């Protein structure tokens, strides 16, 4: 099945209708001209040249067949390579399926039902029995389309093999359980995010828009990136920097000349490897030029406005919860002295103090160079999102830092500070951002641990948020996908336990939802095809991540 764009010719818009009738995510795509409509269980193919009424009827019949269980593999297997039988079956079962959900169908489709034929069977099996019998069965009308056994069975097999993961219970789990997420098979469902892979919006974007690529199996991620050919190649996008020991750069003191070591979770041995990874901060090489800072290009400001604000007790307000005694005394004195008193004599609790530090962690490993949706590479889309988030958060008065990372083995996890917390947001930041070139691998766990450490040391606020922009492929030398997923998941849980909210964003990459869930665990995560959709997911995501970190933060008594 092709997952190509299916909504460019207007047919894609019918996906919602097909989904409503079938009760499952279903898309509509153009079939061959003149060919009867058919479905593979995921997509309904209808003749794009047919009239609107015929299209609706054709997709409604196919969706009804799916809703009524008419295309169950057990039945379809019997129809394989027997087109005449399939037609007879459709002649009965089509009417039965439509009648079974008649209450849900538009009036125009209900008129297709032949009640007498529908009454001949009460189940798909009964329709099949009728089709196998010698009874006379009228040919189904053209709008009923056809049943194609082979694609249906192929999809059924694919879904069967993918359906081995049972979602975890959605109730809140404790800190220990959170840290032990990798004790299960790595399929912990995102319970904190309404828009994560398992969330409603995530599914909507994944299924209805239908533009998320699938991860192609075989070979390590980013294996086609040129930087993988030799480990001796100079690091792309940055060069190792020796610390200049500048006292004013407080954040630099977090990392020594030799880098900082972090533990790594060994999923096979089920223990931490101490001081296993070395993270070095490397200065990013600025591009010669970069597009100017676009103010709120993706409309993120509004979504982020109310996040991470604390209450301020404001005095001398014209309204409020309590009387401001000092202001009242002054007002009385002024009144007695004969001048007009100030009426602002109350104390009001106002939610206006920004109390949020955000560190954005941008994946610049080789796999980000892969082409993504809308003709841009994954890197370009993630870079645009990082820039938009940085600008929006900075303008709102939040403390924001942007770091990029990639790795070449455990001793060379390179993290490039594009903007540190105390850097100004200026053209140089944008040039540094545009100077990043994707390459090498992704030791995600170490990057997350370093990002969280920087955030905790230099964020300086009580609310902290770590945002990982990544395609979710954690892979490095001696750090295969399963290891990487378990380690990244644990690193996120560690950060959350220390009161740092974690958000993971995948933009334009084709990583499938299961893989993302394995890597990001219960962190708030969302996979969106285009940067333009960031606005819709960012508010709920950030809010849910901040909330999930609230409890540990309070319990830990940290600032």
């Amino acid at each position, binding site marked *: 099945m092709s997952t190509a764009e299916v909504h460019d010719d207007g047919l894609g818009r019918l996906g919602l209708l097909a989904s409503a009738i079938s009760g499952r995510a279903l898309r509509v795509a153009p079939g061959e001209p003149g060919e009867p409509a058919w479905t593979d269980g995921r997509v309904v193919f209808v003749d794009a040249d047919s009239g609107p009424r015929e299209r609706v009827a054709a997709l409604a019949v196919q969706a009804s067949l799916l809703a009524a269980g008419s295309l169950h593999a057990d039945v379809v297997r019997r129809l394989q390579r027997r087109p005449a039988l399939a037609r007879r079956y459709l002649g009965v079962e089509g009417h039965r399926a439509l009648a079974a959900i008649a209450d849900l169908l538009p009036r125009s489709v209900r008129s297709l039902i032949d009640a007498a034929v529908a009454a001949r069977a009460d189940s798909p099996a009964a329709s099949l029995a009728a089709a196998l019998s010698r009874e006379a069965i009228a040919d189904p009308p053209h709008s009923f389309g056809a049943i194609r056994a082979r694609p249906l069975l192929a999809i059924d097999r694919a879904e069967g093999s993918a359906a081995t993961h049972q979602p975890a219970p959605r109730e809140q789990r404790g800190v220990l359980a959170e840290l032990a997420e990798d004790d299960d098979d790595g399929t912990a469902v995102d319970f904190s995010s309404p828009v994560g892979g398992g969330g409603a919006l995530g*599914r909507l974007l994944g299924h209805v828009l239908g533009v998320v690529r699938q991860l192609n199996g075989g070979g390590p991620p980013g294996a086609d990136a040129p930087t993988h050919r030799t480990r001796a190649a100079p690091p792309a996008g940055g060069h190792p920097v020796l610390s200049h020991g500048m006292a004013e750069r407080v954040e630099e003191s977090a990392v020594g000349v030799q880098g900082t070591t972090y533990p790594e979770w060994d999923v096979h041995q089920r223990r931490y490897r101490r001081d296993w990874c070395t993270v070095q901060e490397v200065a990013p090489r600025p591009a010669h030029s970069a597009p100017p800072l676009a103010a709120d290009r993706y409309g993120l400001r509004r979504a982020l406005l109310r996040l991470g604000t604390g209450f301020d007790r404001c005095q001398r307000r014209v309204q409020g919860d309590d009387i401001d005694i000092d202001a009242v005394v002054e007002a009385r004195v002024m009144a007695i002295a004969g001048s007009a008193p100030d009426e602002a004599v109350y104390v009001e609790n106002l939610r206006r103090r920004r109390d949020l530090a955000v560190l954005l962690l941008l994946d610049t490993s080789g796999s980000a160079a892969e082409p993504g949706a809308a003709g841009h590479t994954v890197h370009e889309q993630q870079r645009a999102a990082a820039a938009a988030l940085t600008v929006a958060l900075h303008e709102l008065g939040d403390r924001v830092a942007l770091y990029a990372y990639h790795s070449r083995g455990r001793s060379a996890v390179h993290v490039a500070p594009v903007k540190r917390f105390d850097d100004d947001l200026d053209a140089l930041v944008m040039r540094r951002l545009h100077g990043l070139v994707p390459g090498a691998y992704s030791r995600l766990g170490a990057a997350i641990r370093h990002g969280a450490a920087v955030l905790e040391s230099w964020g300086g606020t009580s609310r902290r948020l770590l945002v990982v922009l990544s395609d979710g492929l954690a892979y490095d030398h001696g750090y295969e996908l399963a290891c990487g997923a378990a380690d990244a998941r644990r690193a996120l849980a560690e950060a959350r336990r220390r009161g740092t909210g974690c958000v993971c964003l995948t933009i334009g990459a084709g990583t499938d939802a299961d893989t993302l869930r394995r890597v990001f665990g219960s962190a708030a995560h969302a996979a969106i095809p285009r940067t333009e959709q960031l606005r819709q997911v960012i508010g709920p995501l950030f809010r849910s991540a901040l909330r999930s970190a609230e409890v540990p933060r309070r319990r830990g008594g940290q600032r």
Partner: protein
Amino acid sequence: MSGDGVRTARLDGVSAARASRPYYVPIANEERVFKAAFRQGLSVLLKGPTGCGKTRFLEAMAFDLDRALITVACHDDLTTADLVGRFLLRGGDTEWVDGPLTRAVREGAICYLDEVVEARQDTTVVLHPLADHRRQLPIDRLGVTLDAAPGFCLVVSYNPGYQSVLKDLKDSTRQRMVAIEFGFPPAEIEAQIVAHEAGIGHDAAAELVRLGQAIRRLETTGLREVASTRVLIAAGRLVAEGLSPREAARAAVAGPLTDDATVTSGLVEMINAYLADERS
């Protein structure tokens, strides 16, 4: 400020704004449960999706029980003072002004906190002594503790569909409540409700309900808010004003449910499939 989000409906016969019972069709045993809880002085938690009839239910109950209904729309800046009351300055003197909760406690009214989880947790804690056997409201600023007058009933509502909710409503608050769950009514009853409320024919209402039910089936594929009975009634009212069902549904159903252009166009296709272009 103290009047923010507060609406009072007098239904006590003295200044009855409503002479007849607000239209409400019972779906299950919710009326019996509510009246039993009321007689026992228990607090009530109404759970259900937005626009399914929680507020209307409560208006009908307040009418049946002959109590005033004081409604507070909760929001995340709602403070304890907004509920309980505050001192204001009048000339050179301070004057205490009751908040809606205090007024309900004194008068023995039904106090309805709509979307209670939107309120901050330190605000909802003030409800605890009121919601359990004590039925008392301590007012720190006055240094008094009020006993709730007979007939006082605390009712809170929330929409469990919102993710934040389950986490935010503290267990200690939840466990002081009797819960009544609401859902959208069955198609036949919903068509009856839409026809009555919008003043349109049963057939036109039934087609709107069919569209609404189809949209609700999309819940599993991602539409976060589904078409509530309220939006169907709104569409029906536009039809009653002479708009075609399609025009009405585009304005009252598709528009409010989403801002996403792709989803909107999908909804418009559904509306075209389910509804007629002209008024029947």
